[in-house]
């Protein structure tokens, strides 16, 4: 985003940068052309505009470099946490399988996004996938609702899907992410939203430059029973004995709630990692672009300066030769 702004501004100022001597009065041959201050009646080309541009571009470069360093350090901190939490959802998938193509009446899409911007395209990707899932699961008798985590997805989804949004949660990363916080969140969602299937859309952190949009599906206990009876992926669920609890239904209820909070925890951490990684690469390309702009502006500045010196000399020399001959 910073890059686009810089590019736009570059275009706007281009006509001003081309050196056109501003006609004014003569200056003394010794006064250099670069100063804005000088006696009244001086004639010189102002490089002030170019110099202001250079100063602001240099500041932008410093800022984006600093943001990149900050994102890198935050990434380091959260990456270990995310990698440690990767084992958490695997037992559930091993037991219950993964059924993204399950056909249910009440779908809820949980979109995980960031609160802050300048992190590349990951939030737009998540929103695009959420909208696509909405389209995929639409049908007669099917309804799809959104639960939004993070400001950026809220801004995008509120514009056209306002009536489908059930819950919006922001300021997730105010305090460092912990399982307690996420389980409270999961509890909130489970209590307030009716669902047959929850689809969590997030960006999985693959590496610092690669983020894979992923969708994890958590089914409600009734649907798990239905799929178990129908056979197929969950068909072997009946072969498992149940220890503890009164009925199988109660255990399944606890199981799905626990699964949801574990999967949420992992997805929130992975998305936070992806956010920091995307911010790092966005700020890196931004500072590189600022550096390029600075080079171009420096050349323009020197050309302007030299052109005005040459003009000075030409005037003096032609004046002198006019006097002689």
């Amino acid at each position: 985003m910073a890059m686009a702004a810089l590019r736009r501004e570059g275009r706007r100022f281009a006509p001003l940068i081309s050196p056109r001597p501003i006609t004014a009065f003569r200056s003394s041959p010794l006064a250099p052309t670069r100063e804005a201050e000088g006696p009244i009646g001086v004639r010189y080309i102002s490089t002030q505009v170019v110099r202001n541009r250079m100063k602001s571009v240099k500041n932008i470069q410093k800022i984006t470099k600093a943001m990149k360093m900050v994102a890198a350090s935050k990434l380091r901190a959260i990456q270990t946490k995310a990698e440690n939490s990767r084992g958490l959802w695997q037992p559930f998938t091993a037991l219950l399988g993964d059924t993204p193509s399950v056909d249910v009446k009440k779908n809820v899409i949980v979109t995980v996004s960031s609160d802050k911007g300048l992190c590349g395209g990951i939030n737009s990707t998540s929103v695009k996938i959420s909208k696509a899932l909405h389209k995929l699961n639409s049908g007669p008798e099917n309804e799809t609702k959104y639960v939004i985590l993070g400001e950026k997805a809220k801004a995008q989804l509120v514009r056209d899907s306002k009536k489908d949004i059930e819950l919006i949660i922001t300021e997730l990363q105010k305090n460092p992410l912990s399982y307690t916080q996420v389980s409270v969140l999961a509890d909130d969602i489970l209590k307030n939203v009716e669902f047959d299937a929850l689809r969590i859309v997030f960006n999985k952190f693959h590496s610092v430059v690669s983020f894979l949009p992923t969708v994890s599906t958590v089914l409600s206990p009734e649907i798990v029973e239905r799929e178990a009876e129908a056979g197929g992926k969950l068909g072997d669920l009946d072969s498992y004995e149940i220890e503890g609890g009164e009925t199988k239904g109660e255990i399944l209820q606890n199981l799905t709630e626990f699964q949801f909070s574990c999967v949420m925890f992992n997805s929130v951490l992975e998305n936070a990692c992806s956010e920091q990684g995307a911010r790092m690469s966005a700020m890196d390309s931004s500072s590189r672009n600022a550096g390029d702009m600075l080079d171009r502006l420096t050349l323009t500045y020197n050309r302007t300066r030299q052109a005005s010196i040459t003009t000075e000399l030409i005037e003096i020399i032609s004046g002198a030769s006019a006097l002689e001959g």
Partner: protein
Amino acid sequence: MLRRASGLLARPILAARARPFSTDLPAAQTADATFLEAWKKVIPNMDPPKTPLSFMQPRPPTPSSIPSKLTVNFVLPYASELATKEVDMVIVPATTGQMGVLPGHVATIAELKPGVLSVHEGNEVTKYFISSGFAFIHANSFADVIAVEAVPLDRIDASLVQKGLAEFTQKLSSATTDLEKAEAQIGIDVHSALNSALTG
């Protein structure tokens, strides 16, 4: 249309009953394939998102004879304590009591209460106190234990346990609403389990 597709899928999977694992490679691909096809039909311009199945290691199928070792995965939100560790036996604190799991144990889903998880490998026994969670024992001698918190027993301070127990007992007697009573009861359960873990 999707229902018909899942009906069609049921037949080949029923034929392959010898491998109950839905995360084995061929089954995994078919599951994703339904989703991929449906996605491509409706949204042809975008790449479909990945699903957890593509990030998982497939589990081995049920062997015909009972294996000699049990493979345990003990995971917490903050770390994977034990990842595919081969052990002789684990004892998990299920809500119905301590449950011992040996290789070849019948497939079970067990809800856990706060208690001691002990892992027996040869002559050494590692004990952890876990808060509640779940334990899945699969037919192929794989055991997954998922808990929210776990500490090795030597890190627990006995005096704090006693203090906590006294505090929660007092809270229970002075509790007015159901919520407070439930919270105090949970505190008492955990602390008495900690107590018995330290003594027993």
